[in-house]
């Protein structure tokens, strides 16, 4: 590997598409110089960065080992596969796609089971009656064990399931499941229901940094550039640009706009002629436009932003904190 900085991204499926468009939005075009079937790529116009296309679970393994610097993968897999995950990796940014909840689901017929305390009791009653333990089908062995242990449940057995976990109770290979769900419709179709306090993890795709990767100066520089572009895109997406010019634009009015709508003034206060540029959360744009016009603005122009580059880079700051060992 000649590159000093490696980003691991999913090699297939919906997550790959989402990942590529996420990077593209941030101005990071992932390219495969040797063709679409290649599992090694680069970022167009950036040197020294290698993109490794891997399966989601390989990404987690390599992050844990520190064999890649950054990886894009689901929080569920990270927490399942890496014991004490926060000591090995740092979650730099939640990406807003790949949502999935890891939940405890039981047959709908279990009308006596509403919460984990019920499940605890049923588990013990089940063992006493059947002289065997209730079986939980899941691919999330560690998440399940930790969650059940936190709820004091001991009378259960885990049955590892590679796929179609939700079918296990009907097939008679388990009594209940721990599985991922987005809408819950697959669970419902299999006559299962999620227990009230049975959400183990609300997961989504994350940009994850390996604390133990080789973070030399070159790798840090690459990370700074990549995270700068992602942060600029994050900020651009979080705001609309609002421009106006009117004499009544004073500190008191700006104070009110900041307070009521979360507006920011990226270039400071109004010019002597009352020209002002504001950044406003998208859902507050209309209310802000009304406020400005009520106070004398003739026209208010609103535009989408492509990038907002700031001197501070919150994502890189997070990374630096994660890879710098705390002072003794």
């Amino acid at each position, binding site marked *: 590997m000649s590159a000093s900085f490696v980003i691991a991204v999913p090699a297939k499926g919906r997550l790959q598409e989402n990942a590529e468009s996420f990077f593209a939005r941030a101005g990071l075009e992932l390219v495969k110089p040797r063709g679409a079937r290649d599992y090694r790529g680069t970022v167009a116009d950036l040197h020294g960065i290698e993109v490794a296309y891997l399966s989601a679970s390989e990404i987690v393994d390599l992050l844990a080992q520190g064999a890649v610097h950054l990886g894009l993968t689901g929080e569920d897999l990270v927490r399942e596969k890496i*014991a004490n995950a926060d000591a090995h990796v740092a979650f730099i940014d939640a990406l807003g796609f790949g949502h999935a909840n890891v939940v405890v689901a*039981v*047959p*709908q*017929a*279990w*009308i*006596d089971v*509403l*919460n984990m*305390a*019920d499940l*605890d*009791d*049923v588990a*013990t*009653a*089940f063992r*006493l*009656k*059947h*002289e*065997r*333990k*209730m*079986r939980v089908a899941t691919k999330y*062995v*560690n998440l399940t*064990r930790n969650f*059940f*242990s936190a709820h*004091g449940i*001991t*009378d*259960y*057995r*885990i049955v590892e399931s590679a796929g179609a976990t939700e079918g296990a*109770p*009907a097939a*008679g290979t*388990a*009594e*209940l499941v721990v599985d991922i769900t987005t809408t819950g419709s697959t669970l419902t179709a299999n*006559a299962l229901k999620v227990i009230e306090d049975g959400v183990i993890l609300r997961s989504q795709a994350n940009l994850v940094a390996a604390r133990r990767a080789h973070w030399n100066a070159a790798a840090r520089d690459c990370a700074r550039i990549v995270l700068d572009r992602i942060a600029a895109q994050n900020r651009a997406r979080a705001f609309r640009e609002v421009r106006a010019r009117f004499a009544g634009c004073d500190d008191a009015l700006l104070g009110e706009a900041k307070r009521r709508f979360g507006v920011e003034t990226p270039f400071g206060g109004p010019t002597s002629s009352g020209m002002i540029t504001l950044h406003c959360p998208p859902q507050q744009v209309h209310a802000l436009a009304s406020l400005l016009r009520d106070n004398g603005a003739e026209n208010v122009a609103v535009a989408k932003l492509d990038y907002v580059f700031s001197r501070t880079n919150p994502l890189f700051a997070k990374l630096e904190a994660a890879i710098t060992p705390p002072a003794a």
Partner: protein
Amino acid sequence: MTTAGTIAKSGAPDPRADALLAAFERSGYTCVAPSILQPAEPFLDLSGEDIRKRMYLTADPQGRELCLRPDLTIPVSRDYLASSAAGTAQGFCYLGPVFRYRDDGPGEFLQAGIESFGRADTAAADAEMLALGLEATAHYGLATPDIRIGDVALFSALVSALDLAPAWKRRLIKDFNHKSSLAHDLDRLTITPSRAGSEYQGVLAALERSDPKAAHALVTDLLSIAGITAVGGRSVGEIADRFLEQAALGAQTSLPKEMRALIERFLAISGDPDEAAAELRAFARDAKVALDAALDLFESRTGFLAARGVDVSRIRFSTAFGRGLDYYTGYVFELHDPSARVMGQLVAGGRYDGLLTRLGSTRSIPAVGFAVWIERLASLGARP
């Protein structure tokens, strides 16, 4: 580190360990060496899923889960059940490596121990285990370790004598081995159960006042109308039973404070076995709960201990003492270094009368035994 560099692993255990094993054999126990590679199932089933993270697991080509044995109690028990001697009184001793992942030490370490099956003289067998455990520490120059004992059967007897809903009895017994949960349960016993806000509250309240048989038939019928038979291994009848049990529990939201106070008073009893027995007799009299059978056994055991030359006044008994393993059913004990040079128990064991049934025996076979942590004992001597 507790591991002395001078001790070789499984190939050549240290001479004192060999001498200890020979002493066990002289006491009438047959030396056995179960296979190191074991099916994982019985360990996960009997010790709980929590042990999975400490086990070295693998699979054979057929996909069966195998493990390096994390203890010897289950392997010795399985070999005994598979032998022609199953069901008869037999005693076994062993010395060999066990495998458990640990943060603070090697995953392979030596254990010696004894398993005694099928003896009807319960109190004498219990006492003999502690006496042999003391012999083990004496082999390593520690004649007077701290002796801690408990008796799970006393707590079980108390709970079954109390006027409590079945759900609470189940939970208390289960949680006895998990001390933080038990304290939590005692808190919950006096507060409104979480069910109070449930969507079925009205139905449960209505059913609670109705004839139990009719209510059961109604719930069973309703589930059948919905086209539900056995889903997820629980029968409709089972679901209905517990649904109605919840109704009964719902009415018990204002459980008398006396009940909790009683359990707490019981769990506070400790001392040497003679003091504790006297206190427990007084407690049973006051609380009007029948603990006679369990207490008779307790006192008889103390008598056997004294007869074996154990200084009973040095034993620290506590009603709250359990060993964190579900399969103990009665007497449990641990021996510790009084000057705390070594963390953790040096010798530990107890009675597990239910284990052989859960391993597949068709009849109930009483069992008691203990294990010795060889490296811990050896490191005592290695220190000044």
